[in-house]
């Protein structure tokens, strides 16, 4: 039995039935990491002690014949922007290189309570700022499908870990596309839930009105199992919604026949790679054959999404990242003699170029004289982007688009042109701005065998429908 190619249910059952142990499952994944990760770079820190302790707890449950919880014994990776008590958490930044958090992120605590075995902390762009994972302060991640290419970002580590069988599932975060775009580049499933569906407590803040935690997985069902586990109100996050959490797994097999799926021409325009277009159009045809009705919709403000995003996200980031001052827990530059010098030198040495660029842009957009022209303007356009979706969702149940305009690009290809890099998120940022859920599911490959992703966007708090559509598509593949 190959222990590193199991889905959640398969992994839990083999442990439950004692055909293997949670310990052996964890060890098999660590062996895989040992063998593959030198080249890929998906993990920054391994949490072996914590993993083996949890595996042992699960094995004792199985030995006593107790039913294992939903993720019992399942090895998982955690993007290094979610804090883990006693396990180094860096956010991919030098400024937190030695940070050992004193508490656990709610999403991590919830999957562990459901039996998951946390293997370690997955690499990412610094403070989740990037679309290629080249902005990690420690090392870039490489795409397991082609080591000369990027895995996407900023959840490049989690996507690569799942794609290379180094973890069964992983938790990532999405602020502008950071779960869905790397899922698309690495050929795995990536789900961004509705804003407020999953608590952000313990997620290192990038842009608080846009940050989401969600799963990267090998199958749509696995993504549904993880969402069911991490979703729901958390008193520690006042923006987490106090709404009932549906049983996403039980609803997966609901028929998709008769569902109305919107196709917006704004997502098929200039800049879309031909091979991606063909694969996504073929996917839409397949959904039609499964009984979905394809309905043209218009999302006319889409061309304004990237500029809106890069003002809102950077403004929030400039405020959120002010906390890294070298006083309580972050890096402090040596040899400083005044408080002002301590702040400036610590931040200058601790932050990478892209983080500084975004802090600068955000500070500029918020500064006296520019606030109305940039930040306030962007907040107003954000309303228009939300209205586009509200209007479209009066006609359709979900919207299907490409996840990214291209397949995985080469390392170094866009790293000197920030604007070109930002455009890799052109189809994903709108969902973050509007707060709606989105999923990327593999829908084919290019001639060079690079994965292509189909994105399905849904109504607020209607993850169930996009999971159903993604599941039906995946099963028909």
């Amino acid at each position: 039995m190959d222990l590193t190619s199991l889905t959640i249910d398969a992994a839990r059952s083999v442990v439950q039935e004692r055909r293997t142990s949670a310990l052996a499952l964890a060890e098999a994944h660590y062996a895989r990491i040992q063998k593959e990760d030198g080249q890929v770079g998906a993990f920054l820190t391994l949490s072996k002690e914590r993993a083996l302790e949890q595996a042992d707890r699960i094995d004792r449950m199985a030995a006593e014949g107790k039913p294992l919880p939903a993720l019992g014994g399942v090895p998982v990776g955690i993007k290094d922007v979610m804090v883990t008590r006693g396990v180094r958490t860096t956010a991919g930044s030098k400024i937190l290189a030695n940070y050992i958090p004193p508490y656990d992120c709610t999403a991590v605590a919830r999957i562990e309570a459901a039996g998951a075995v946390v293997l370690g902390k997955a690499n990412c762009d610094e403070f989740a700022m990037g679309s290629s994972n080249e902005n990690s302060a420690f090392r870039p991640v490489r795409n397991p499908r082609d080591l000369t290419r990027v895995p996407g970002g900023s959840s490049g580590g989690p996507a690569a870990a799942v794609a290379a069988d180094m973890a069964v599932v992983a938790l990532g975060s999405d602020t502008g596309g950071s779960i869905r775009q790397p899922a698309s580049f690495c050929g795995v499933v990536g789900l961004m839930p509705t804003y407020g569906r999953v608590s952000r407590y313990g997620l290192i803040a990038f842009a608080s009105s846009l940050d989401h935690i969600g799963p990267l997985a090998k199958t749509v069902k696995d993504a549904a199992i993880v969402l069911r586990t991490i979703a729901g109100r958390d008193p520690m996050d006042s923006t987490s919604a106090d709404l009932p959490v549906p049983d996403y797994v039980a609803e997966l097999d609901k028929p998709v026949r008769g569902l109305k799926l919107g196709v917006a021409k704004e997502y098929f325009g200039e800049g879309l790679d031909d091979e991606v277009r063909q694969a996504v159009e073929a996917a839409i045809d397949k959904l039609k054959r499964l009984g979905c009705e394809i309905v043209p919709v218009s999302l006319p403000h889409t061309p304004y999404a990237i500029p809106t995003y890069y003002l809102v996200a950077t403004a929030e980031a400039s405020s959120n990242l002010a906390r890294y001052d070298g006083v309580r827990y972050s890096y402090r530059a040596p040899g400083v003699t005044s408080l002002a010098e301590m702040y400036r030198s610590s931040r200058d040495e601790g932050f990478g170029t892209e983080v500084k660029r975004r802090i600068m842009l955000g500070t500029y957009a918020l500064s006296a004289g520019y606030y109305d022209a940039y930040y306030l303007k962007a907040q107003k356009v954000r309303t228009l982007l939300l209205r586009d979706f509200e209007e479209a969702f009066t006609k359709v149940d979900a919207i299907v688009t490409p996840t990214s305009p291209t397949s995985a690009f080469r390392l170094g290809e866009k790293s000197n042109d920030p604007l070109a890099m930002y455009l890799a998120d052109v189809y994903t940022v709108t969902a973050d701005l509007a707060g709606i859920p989105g999923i990327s599911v593999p829908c084919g490959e290019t001639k060079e065998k690079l994965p292509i992703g189909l994105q399905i966007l849904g109504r607020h708090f209607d993850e169930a429908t996009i999971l159903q559509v993604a599941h039906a598509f995946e099963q028909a593949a």
Partner: protein
Amino acid sequence: MKVTEKDVAYVAGLANLELTQEEQAGMVRDLNSILQYVDRLNELDTSNVAPMAQVSGRYGVDGSKQGTERFSYASREDIPEGLRKSLPREEALANAPDSDGMFFKVPKVIER
């Protein structure tokens, strides 16, 4: 060019960043390129559009619990000891670059 070196130095000061000469030049170039792109937002007339800070005031609200105040959905009873206990001093200081076991230590703030 909208943003000058002087602007970049001013904003870097606001953000408590100390940029090298080289970084400053790169920042002038990048900010101008990004702001030029962002300017396309001015094609839109937003004079009658309300700004949106986040979505959770509109969605995710349980109607039965909704009050009249904004964000009332997020309100709760006051808990004197807080939602979670404060960290023990030792844990709170564990990541400090410098401390005396009682307080965080920083370079002298007031010159005399």
